[in-house]
């Protein structure tokens, strides 16, 4: 215990001296959730890259999916006297106290990728993607592509009850409203995984006359689409031609499928949340101008026309 205390104070001391030594440049603490998915690993990589490009000294803390670790990390960032803190909060509740501490220390906090249930004067801004909008972009692409022809759509939902599943479904349906030629004939959960995506697609194909009644597939994430593409191929159909495939996330593997003509479009959930966050922070520190409480990242649409192999090469190294 004594040793642990001594070690802790030594660390803080070391951190303090280090912090004051490099006071000239911007020091930003980043409390990441962990690395539960490829997307999050890519977010971590991109945040580090973005910080390096701007000459920001990024202090990185991996919370291993635990809120207590994030709170500890934020407290230690406050103790170190960083200029700003980025947090990707693991859960929505329980942040008021530590955010207040940061506010008292006059350190701006920016939320990445997820939001929290706390008064919005406790943080500077939140940089997130709009999940409903993502579904909307996918739906709009499909409506534009089939251009008035009748089209039966099957939908692979994410994990039942999860907010991406609910919102991406909602956005897609909004985009389809008013297009009477587009009908969602089957919708079932594929749990965001390749295995379930493949299994559920197999049953869709059986249920709809061997796939003859299906004109398009909408998957709430790329992994399910990749699984479903295999199921379509094994049923003797051509994914991308016989059945259009549109999904969300833009992970590297879907670009390989697009390059092979087996997937048609994907909507990017950008892992670059840090870029807009650093921009907002720079503006805030320069003129004291507070940004809007919510910065929406771009939900970019990629199709086969966007040189998928090139995007694949770019994304491959990000740790997806």
């Amino acid at each position, binding site marked *: 215990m004594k040793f642990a205390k001594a070690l802790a104070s030594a660390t803080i001391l070391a951190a303090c001296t280090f912090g004051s030594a490099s006071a000239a440049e911007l020091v930003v603490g980043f409390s990441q959730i962990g690395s539960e998915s490829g997307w999050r690993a890519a977010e971590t990589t991109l945040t580090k890259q973005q910080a390096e490009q701007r000459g920001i000294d990024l202090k990185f803390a991996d919370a291993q999916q635990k809120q207590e670790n994030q709170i500890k990390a934020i407290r230690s960032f406050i103790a170190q006297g960083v200029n700003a803190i980025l947090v990707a909060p693991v859960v929505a509740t329980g942040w008021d106290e530590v955010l207040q501490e940061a506010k008292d220390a006059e350190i701006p906090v920016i939320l990445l990728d997820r939001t929290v249930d706390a008064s919005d004067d406790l943080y500077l801004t939140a940089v997130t993607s709009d999940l409903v909008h993502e579904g909307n972009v996918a739906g709009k692409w499909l409506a534009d592509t089939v251009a008035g022809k009748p089209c039966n759509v099957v939908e692979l939902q994410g994990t*039942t009850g999860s907010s991406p599943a609910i919102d991406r479904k909602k956005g897609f349906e909004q985009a389809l409203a008013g297009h009477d030629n587009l009908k969602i004939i089957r919708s079932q959960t594929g749990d965001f995984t390749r295995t379930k995506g493949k299994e559920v697609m197999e049953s869709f194909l059986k249920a709809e006359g061997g796939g003859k009644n299906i004109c398009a597939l909408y998957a709430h994430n790329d992994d399910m689409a990749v699984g479903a593409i*295999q199921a379509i191929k094994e049923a003797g159909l051509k994914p991308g031609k016989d059945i259009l495939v549109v999904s969300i996330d833009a992970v590297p593997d879907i670009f390989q499928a697009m390059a092979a003509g087996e997937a048609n479009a994907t909507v990017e959930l950008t892992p670059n949340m840090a870029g807009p966050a650093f921009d907002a922070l720079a503006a805030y520190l320069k003129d004291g101008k507070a940004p809007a409480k919510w910065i929406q990242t771009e939900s970019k649409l990629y199709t086969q026309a966007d040189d998928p192999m090139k995007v694949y090469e770019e994304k491959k190294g990000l740790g997806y």
Partner: protein
Amino acid sequence: MTSTLRTYLARLLPQLIALAAILIAISMTFPGFLNLEIQNGRLYGSLIDILNRGAPVVLLAIGMTVVIATKGIDLSVGAVMAICGAVAASFITSGHSLLETILITLAVGVLCGMWNGILVAVLDIQPIIATLVLMVAGRGIAQLVTEGTILTFNDPGLIFIGSGSFAGLPMPVVVWLVFGVLVALLVRQSALGMLIEAIGVNRRASTLSGVLTPVLLIAAYMLSGLCAAIAGIIAAADIRGADANNAGLWLELDAILAVVVGGTSLLGGRFSIAASVLGAIIIQAINTGILLSGFPPEFNLIIKAAIIVFILVLQSPRFRTAFAFFAVPGRAAKTTEQEAK
């Protein structure tokens, strides 16, 4: 021979009836369900999907049956699947031959089983705790192997195990059929099965009567690990990639459920591998039926749970006695009458 066959069928009767009832129920709601056709040189249809998609749980259930018969339980099989899938993917992508990859993967599975077995048999840790260790740690190990990504591969040989076909049947079905028959023959044509049951009924008494309890216990867990390794290879080959986060997730629970639906007691003792396989197929039939039915996904788990409760109630001895008493003047009713006299 006919009498042994008859007792065998009598043992499997509840499972066969349950399976038939589920298949009939699905084919009533979805008419094309029982259709089979030949496409690309293999059988194609929902029934084949059930056998094919059920492969991982069937394989896990085979190993789980033997472990449960020893009065144990193996919670780690789902995680071992993830580890083995990851090992297979990383070896095949680093240029090893298919044979090497498969042998090493199976060896890793057996090793995981041996770890569980040693904890249970030598260190005398309760099976649920001993296997919990690997259940929790396994996914971490798998992620270390894949480095946190979905490790994809293009080796045609490995992919063939997941989605190829042999004699008109998908490869996974061929694999579990052959493996299941081999294990069943091994335990039933030798005294192994009886010794395993003896350990399950009374471990101390078996040890005292000269059964090599620790060796058999470790072997049971190693078999379970081997089953998980095969299931892991199939799961990875199916999607052409090792998904450390999701491969085999919660499948240990489905495997235990399959054993229970198959009528093997969690308290150890008598077991039937064929009945567990049927149990696994029943679970998969329910899953496939739900997918075909077109219900909203919010109902999936509720429907599955309701059907399984129904099957378990049908199997409960009390229910059967009561049912026999009211319906047909069968054996159970007679015994009750005799008792009354």
